[in-house]
């Protein structure tokens, strides 16, 4: 038998999921797992009803509420009638179509990209979709996971397939050892600053190299989560012992003999030696500093000690105008340092950084200290399970003693749909993924950073370098 062509992780998963490929048509790609939430699904369910269609695979579909739910006391009614209606609508849709819902009162409720992995729905080799651009998070397990629109949500509900054109592959190789105070969030912010918010368009990223291998699963999820912020279709990391150790014993992973079978298959997934990528970049993790964004897209990032760039230093007119517009919105002056810039709010949470290791990192900085007076600091765990774990470890007391709010799980101030929002003109240091205009509330101004940087900034009441506190 002739030797098979060397394949990348992405190609192996893609090829295995091609249901049909006709000339002049996109591939029908099979979807192993469909995650559903309240915001991008109602019109898709209505589409099924309007066309008299059934849900093809309830047992490959799972739902939760995360975007529009309050992070305050859950025993109280939801104050916003539109949010309440949207959440109720998801409950109705799940009941009608037979979808398991990890709903508002469930002990497994949480941000969709937090509960998928922690319950073991997310597994290596799968195709995973969700009507949410941060679905790339699940790529940390060696799955092909990407965000889709509402029409595609309906396609998956009805056919368990999507029509797709094959993206190209892009290796992001990161070697070296991270310095103290530098974490996964800084890796991904540095990458996006390097390749730009359009740098990944049309590509699936595969993160490789010793720095990636050294990351925990939660840190890998942080990296993959923000692949979309470089415009990429997806971001992936080949599964290894770290992956298998994380998954072992999770409620929805294969059990007993089926686990052994699954392991055998998962070990075949990593890219073959000599597999070719269409594009590649390298980064040296040991050279990275804590990163922060200054502008209004995640590519406008810099080391926390660097000055705000001048629009004139940008390579072309369009990016000069973009930076000028961003600095105007952010009310920042070129050439001045961000370090020491006053802030009003710190948000620790989101599908990027709300897992237990993120909370531990922040608590490690905040323990026995007080956040700056007048500062509002929200700590929002990613799921009920993360919340319970944090409670067992005594983290809420550390946060409360420091002067932070400890809240119920959800997307919260990352997307500001649920009442957790910045006031116009306020600055935040946020562990979330987007610093777009108005993202955290109309007129709000966001500095994206790691949980360590967010905690340090909370203590100092301004943009801070966590390395001075280590």
């Amino acid at each position, binding site marked *: 038998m002739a030797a098979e062509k060397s394949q990348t992780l992405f190609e192996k998963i893609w090829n295995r999921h091609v249901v049909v490929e006709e000339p002049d048509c996109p591939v029908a790609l*099979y979807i192993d797992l469909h995650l559903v939430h309240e915001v*991008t699904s109602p019109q898709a369910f209505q589409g099924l009803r309007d066309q008299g269609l059934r849900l093809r695979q309830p047992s490959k579909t799972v739902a939760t509420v995360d975007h529009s739910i309050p992070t305050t006391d859950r025993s109280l009614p939801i104050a916003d009638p539109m949010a309440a209606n949207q959440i109720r609508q998801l409950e109705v849709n799940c009941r009608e179509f037979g979808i398991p819902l990890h709903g508002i009162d469930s002990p497994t409720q949480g941000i969709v990209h937090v509960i998928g992995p922690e319950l073991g729905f997310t597994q290596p080799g799968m195709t995973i979709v969700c009507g949410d651009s941060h679905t790339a998070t699940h790529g940390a397990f060696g799955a092909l996971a990407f965000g889709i*629109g509402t029409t595609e949500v309906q396609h998956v509900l*009805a056919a368990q397939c999507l029509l797709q054109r094959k993206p190209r592959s892009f290796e992001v190789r990161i070697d070296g050892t991270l310095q103290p105070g530098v974490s996964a969030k800084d890796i991904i912010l540095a990458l996006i600053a390097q390749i730009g918010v*359009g740098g990944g368009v049309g590509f699936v990223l595969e993160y490789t190299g010793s720095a990636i291998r050294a990351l925990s699963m939660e840190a890998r999820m942080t990296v993959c989560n923000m692949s979309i912020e470089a415009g990429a279709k997806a971001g992936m990391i080949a599964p290894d012992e770290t992956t298998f150790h994380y998954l072992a014993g999770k409620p929805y992973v294969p059990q007993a003999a089926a686990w052994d079978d699954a392991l055998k298959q998962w070990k075949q997934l990593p890219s073959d030696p000599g597999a070719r990528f269409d594009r590649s970049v390298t980064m040296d993790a040991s050279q990275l500093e804590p990163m922060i964004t200054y502008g209004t897209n995640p590519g406008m990032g810099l080391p926390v000690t660097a000055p705000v760039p001048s629009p004139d230093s940008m390579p072309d007119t369009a*990016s000069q105008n973009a930076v000028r517009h961003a600095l105007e919105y952010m009310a920042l002056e070129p050439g001045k340092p961000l370090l020491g810039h006053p802030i009003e709010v710190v948000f620790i949470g989101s599908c990027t950084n709300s897992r237990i290791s993120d909370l531990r990192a922040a608590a490690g900085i905040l323990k026995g200290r007080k956040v700056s007076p007048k500062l509002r600091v929200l700590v929002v765990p990613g799921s009920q399970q993360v919340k319970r774990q944090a409670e067992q470890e005594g983290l809420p007391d550390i946060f409360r003693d420091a002067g932070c709010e400890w809240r119920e799980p959800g997307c919260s101030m990352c997307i500001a749909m649920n009442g957790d929002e910045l006031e116009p003109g306020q600055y935040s240091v946020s562990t979330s993924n987007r610093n777009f*205009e108005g993202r955290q509330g109309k007129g709000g101004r966001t500095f994206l950073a790691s949980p360590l940087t967010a905690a340090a900034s909370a203590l100092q009441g301004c943009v801070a370098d966590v390395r001075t506190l280590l």
Partner: protein
Amino acid sequence: MEPITKITSRLVPLPNENVDTDIIVPARFLKVTDKAGMDQYLFRDWRFDEAGKPLPDFILNQPRAKGAQILLAGRNFGSGSSREHAPWALLAFGFRALLSTSFADIFQGNALKNGLLPVVIPPDVHADLFRQVEKNPNLEVTVELASQTVTLPDGKTVSFPIDNFSKQCLLAGVDQLGYLLKQESHIRAYEQSHPPRVQTTIGS
């Protein structure tokens, strides 16, 4: 979905690059459960002040935008979130085609599935159109899907790429789901030969 054949229209220029879907439809308007009234949310925070009064400087509030069907957008238009509310709102306002040098992936897919045509044009043509439209707000172009061409004000044409499948769906005004559902026998065969990876319904 309304078919797309030929669109002749004034251009509405919006040169900002990387316009994200949070700008196109801010997240606070995503609590809807249908597609009604989306036009009022389009570019909400660039278009209206705190009191909901139109900001006269914003291009969509100028007379030239009235009835226009083609947006001339900066590169990487539609970046960020997967919200399909973005193309819904652009369509509800009256746009049928978008001209740029590049579009974000998810946005482009969403647009194509809703009868909104993303047209990728070469950077020099793109830059030239911005220059011309600044001088002449009534500048018109014609986008013709069948021939995959944009006819520029000087009569010259440039061609644009689109995959044939999306093109046929747009010309006929049909949703792509119909094609997928016709693959039933293939999907069933796939499912029979590939045991499920996960059973989400266990214990529920």
